[in-house]
């Protein structure tokens, strides 16, 4: 208590002109009241954070509680809602199309994450060494990142279009195919088209994250290994990868979390097709909540997605917190 009070008094003395001119400042009684005044002056801090807290509560904390609450209800857009307990969750267990969507989402997440790393890691190694022009290359690789997902999707929807697009007509004119192939008509070409588009859009982002990791590796370490006769692959495996563990974990988590929440590209380019085979989890929730207006059921689906993401975030915190673990 006394150290706390002394510390507060010290802050006060430094902060306030009045304190240094107050002759009674040394008596214990006055110091006690001053301590309380110090605290109160610090409460001004609440005013500074109040707008932020208000927004986060109104548009995040309350909606979060409401999602949980609504998930226990039959809640149509119009008319009254009724409490139905866990019925929505029981319905989810039987909702084959949701599980198919979730399954597809995980499949997409795994493939796209591998693809992004396969492109971004070589790019990061390429732009990491300082040399002329490297800044320009870095900027070029990064440009698709700042273009929004919606813009990029609209752009690629055109490039992938069978009649007015680029790829099919170009392949046809070059004689690679004997007719214009509709890339978006069957699952595999459509799926891989999306993968290519997302890699083009996101690789620059992952590249920059990985690059900061590479740059934090001390140069002397590499030199020492080189002198000891380690070849490029050995240096990469025993120095680069272990020292980049945290960075890799971060890039991995960002990619995985982003992919699990994928919506824009599947909605804009494929509309979930062909034959609903590319509906993602968020897309299915969107359909249930805002096309069928089953708000309660949509909320229950949201809770499932939310739990998956929170678990993922907690795993992330673990990965980032203790570098020695695992």
């Amino acid at each position: 208590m006394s150290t706390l009070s002394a510390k507060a008094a010290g802050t006060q003395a430094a902060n306030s002109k009045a304190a240094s001119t107050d002759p009674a400042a040394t008596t214990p009684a006055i110091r006690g009241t001053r301590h309380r005044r110090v605290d109160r002056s610090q409460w001004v801090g609440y005013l500074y954070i109040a707008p932020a807290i208000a927004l986060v509560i109104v548009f995040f904390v309350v909606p979060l509680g409401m999602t949980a609450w609504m998930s226990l209800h039959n809640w149509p857009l119009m008319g009254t809602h009724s409490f139905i307990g866990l019925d929505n969750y029981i319905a989810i267990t039987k909702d084959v199309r949701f599980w198919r969507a979730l399954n597809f989402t995980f499949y997409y997440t795994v493939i796209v994450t591998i693809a992004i790393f396969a492109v971004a890691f070589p790019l990061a190694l390429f732009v990491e060494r300082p040399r002329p022009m490297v800044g320009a290359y870095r900027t070029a690789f990064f440009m698709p990142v700042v273009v929004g997902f919606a813009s990029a999707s609209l752009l690629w929807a055109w490039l992938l279009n069978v009649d007015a697009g680029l790829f099919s007509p170009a392949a046809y004119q070059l004689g690679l195919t004997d007719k214009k192939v509709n890339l978006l008509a069957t699952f595999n070409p459509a799926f891989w088209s999306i993968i290519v588009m997302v890699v083009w859009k996101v690789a620059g982002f992952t590249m920059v994250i990985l690059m900061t990791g590479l740059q934090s590796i001390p140069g002397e370490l590499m030199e020492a290994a080189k002198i000891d006769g380690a070849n490029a692959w050995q240096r990469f495996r025993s120095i680069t990868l272990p020292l980049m563990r945290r960075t890799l974990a971060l890039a991995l988590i960002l990619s995985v979390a982003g992919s699990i929440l994928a919506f824009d590209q599947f909605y804009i380019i494929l509309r979930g097709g062909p034959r609903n085979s590319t509906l993602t989890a968020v897309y299915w929730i969107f359909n249930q909540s805002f096309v069928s207006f089953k708000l309660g059921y949509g909320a229950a689906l949201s809770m499932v997605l939310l739990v998956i993401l929170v678990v993922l975030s907690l795993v992330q915190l673990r990965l980032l917190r203790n570098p020695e673990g695992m």
Partner: protein
Amino acid sequence: MAIRSRERSLASLFADHGTGIFLSVVFIAPIVWAVLSTFKPPMEARQPPLPPWPTTGFSVQNYVTLDTFGDGLWHAAQNSIYVAVMSVLLTVLISVFAGYGFSRFHFPFKNAFFLMILATIMIPFQSILTPIFLILTTFKLQNTLTGLVLVYVTLQLPFSIFMMRNAFDAVPKEIEEAARIDGAKSVALLARIMLPLVWPGVVTVAIFAFLNSWNEFLAALVLMTDQSKFTLPIMMTAVQSGRFGAVDWGAVQAGVTVMMIPCLVLFLLLQRFYIRGLTAGAVK
């Protein structure tokens, strides 16, 4: 011997920059392709973009056509500009105040509040859109751009407040104390003394707020059901889905160009601040 090693280093130099230039072209090509094709006359724009540049004369007809769909391109662009600019201003204002509060004051539950704000990063906003819609309706903000702005600002807060608190933490306390002794009041002190010192952080926060609100798709799609309130991504998706008749790809790419250019210009001008924001999380 010397000549051969110089040849080899020259060859590797060519290989290095050849790779760099080739990859740069690959990454930029789709953007350039789209932008060039928008200047084709409508007849030509319906054909595959081979070559990408106009061959039958330069035309801005695609942009003119786009303005005839629904409330028009210009109206949607105005909506987008309003939403993005308001989001930037509010995000900066709120996160500067909050960052200052978290950095410089000591009050009960401070860390709890800070953690609460940061923890929202873990929750995907996609999962709480329905209640957000209902809350906006309660406040009579459904289908208003202001409502959308408030949602976007909230989504920006965790990152922005984190950035601003770190920025204020990096300013030595002595500067503030000196100003205080000179009699500066809190808010004036913040505006006159502190703001110039944390300016790079403010720019970073502003860029991210602009890009994210300008490009955001799902929340705008769900919350803005009235056509006159469409932002550019929603408007262009409606055009591309054939809502206004047969899909006019020339017009769609014109819209894509209008959406892309501000982002690219902003990024090229303020790249340093953008990358700083990106790596702030990675280094921590």
